């Protein structure tokens, strides 16, 4: 007589639809708990203490938040961060769309051009900022050498108050513009062509086709770009590290958090600043997510 072995507990669970989903997703949940939830809640706890890496943390209630709310340096950094986020998004999406439209056709050397467009994304952000710091130096930089050939006086990209901030924006856009370009290009290529062809036959102009047909269809992708880039821009750090280090009125929120927590070791206050940054990011992401869902439903 054939002996049939009883399946093990794990086998039984894996074969069961309900249990198998949880078993398969459990490693991810564990990673999220350990590397995301635990640090976030631990930081939240720290933000209510005066921990300075000596002794044990003492609970101080809302003192750190009260300090942050009355701290001019914090509000200035927050305002600059919001400003840089909005400006970068407008430039990246506008310019990204224009370049994506130009690339959305067949032309000689298109693969080479598209490959070159992708290069900035491949450079490590810190290397990028160091590279631009040297390239844009007022006396030793190659960029000023080149514009000098056109008879233009050298420009203090990172050494002029006001301009230094826009130079940070410029190098950040330079690095991340390809992200918008290629997401939008992928979107353009995936749009159904028959509707546009029909509209053209009816005599509708290309501008109208773009604004009335293509752009609404691309809205979900644009919102995804805004969502992701907002999160990243709120944490902008690398462009500062290799260039101004927060000097010349360029200090952003993430730099301030880094300085407070890892240079001044005021862990309580630094995590309070970080919590503020998290709240702002969550609000923006929540708004964008709702718009995204609505746009996807409309489409």
């Amino acid at each position, binding site marked *: 007589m054939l002996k049939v072995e009883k399946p093990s507990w794990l086998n039984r669970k894996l074969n069961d639809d309900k249990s198998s989903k949880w078993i398969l997703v459990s490693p991810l949940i564990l990673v999220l708990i350990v590397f995301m939830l635990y640090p976030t809640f631990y930081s939240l706890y720290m933000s209510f203490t005066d921990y300075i890496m000596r002794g044990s943390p003492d609970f101080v209630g809302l003192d750190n938040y009260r300090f942050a709310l009355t701290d001019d340096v914090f509000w200035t950094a927050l305002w600059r961060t919001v400003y840089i986020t909005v400006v970068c998004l407008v430039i990246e999406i506008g310019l990204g769309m224009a370049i994506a439209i130009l690339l959305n056709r067949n032309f000689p050397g298109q693969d080479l051009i598209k490959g070159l467009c992708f290069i900035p994304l491949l450079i490590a952000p810190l290397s990028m900022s160091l590279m631009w710091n040297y390239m844009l130096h007022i006396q030793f930089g190659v960029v000023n050498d080149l514009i000098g050939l056109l008879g233009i006086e050298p420009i203090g990209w990172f050494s002029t*108050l006001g301009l230094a901030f826009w130079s940070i924006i410029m190098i950040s856009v330079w690095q991340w513009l390809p992200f918008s370009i290629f997401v939008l290009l992928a979107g353009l290529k995936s749009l159904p062509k028959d509707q546009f062809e029909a509209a053209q036959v009816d005599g509708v102009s290309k501008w109208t086709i773009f604004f009335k047909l293509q752009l609404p269809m691309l809205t979900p992708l644009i919102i995804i770009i805004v969502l992701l880039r907002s999160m990243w821009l709120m944490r902008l750090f690398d462009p500062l590290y290799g260039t101004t280090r927060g000097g010349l*009125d360029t200090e952003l929120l993430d730099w301030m958090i880094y300085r407070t927590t890892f240079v001044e*070791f005021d862990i309580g206050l630094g995590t309070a600043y970080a919590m503020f940054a998290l709240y702002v990011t969550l609000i923006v992401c929540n708004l964008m997510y709702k718009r995204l869902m609505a746009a996807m439903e409309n489409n």
Partner: protein
Amino acid sequence: MNSIIKHSKVIGLSSLVFAVSTAISAFTLDDIPEIKNKTPINVALEAGGSADTIIPFLEAFSKKTGVPITHEAMVFATLYSKENIELQSGTGAYDVVVTETSWTNEWKDYLAPLEDLANKYDPVGAEGFKKYVSGQDAGILRMASTRDGSLVGAPYYTYTQQNIYRKDLLTDTGEMSAFKSKYGYDLSAPTTQQQLLDIAEFFTRKAGDKLKGETLDKPFYGVSLMAGRYPHVQDEVSAILWGSGGRWARTNRDSNGKVVSFEITDDDANKLEEAFAYYQKLMKFAPPGSENAFWDFATAQFVEGNTAMIPYMYCPLWNWSSDVEKVGGMNAAAAVVGERPYTGAFHFAPSVDSKNLEAAYWLLKYIGSKETQTEMVNKGWSSARKDSLDACDRNAENAHRNCGWIDSVASQWEAQAPEIETYLHFNSGAFGKLYEQMTIIAHENAVGIKSPAESVKAWKKAFNRFQKKFDDVKVIN
């Protein structure tokens, strides 16, 4: 006869003492006794030329003692943060840490006092160790000690500031004559703030003007400054402030010499404001780009022949500054104006969490010895040992590069040593944090974001907050 015998005994005894003290002061690898604990030790290093110079000595120590050594080189900008985290967390990640002298008091609970280690491991004990360090500059030794006087590190590297200037410009007969006509006194390395300002103004010229009789094809500037938001601009301000007798804050001690409080007196606040204002005046004669510069760019300006002086430059940059000869220049070094430079130094300090304090002790004694430091000095090293600097070979081919910076630094050490005790840098347990605040405020003053008066106000606010939060010595308002 009796007097001859007595005299002979005195001579004999003196000779014996001299021989013994010389013998005790001398220290080489062969003097290290067997280290039974072979647990590897990890050494933190500042990345760059200094790491490259030290690593062969670490390897030699490891080979001789059989104790494996690993090392981790970090750029200065991250050195404090990385080491601080490991020390305060008690991880034992580093057995020997690089300690900037202004971090000494902050880390006093994490560093093992050297005299205790000497008593435990060294046959010559603490007394012998004191003789061993007697060749160090007294001021730098004080900086490597806590405010209570406990030596916790062996200084091995200094970056004392000095005025590095174009000797060929200041000794050019045409320039000297023009300067005397304009300012009414002889052109030479400045010794007062006004002289520095005058020389900076005098040598700031447009393209098309003449310099040493030759037409300039690009602008030339009087001074190189490090006004960027890096930990250098506040050192420049410190030299200006200390040179005028001011302090960032006064250190008050009780009758036993214990530090009991700090305060920013009205006189110090006024002098600080003057120092900030003076720096802004100097900035007018610095090249564009100085607003975001650190020592790298400031020295490059000089080497490329764009500036006449780097009035507050760290002495390790002397060697590179000698490259100005490639553009027809000649460098020379003088004391900074006021002779009170930022006399920074690194000392190797053993962490209390080290699993091999014995090896850590012998390593830092070896690296900080006269013999090792002299060998390094003759390779262009900026040693903190005065006796090693005295032994720099001034007849060697590279004598100008290796030794040319020494005399002005040594004279400043002598002038400044009695005052080290009074500097906030070497008495506050919050100084690692205060340093960052000084950087921010001095930078914002330099580029015009804050006025000198606003900068003083910002400093008072920051000092009060950080000193109270990170140290237990009170602040008198």
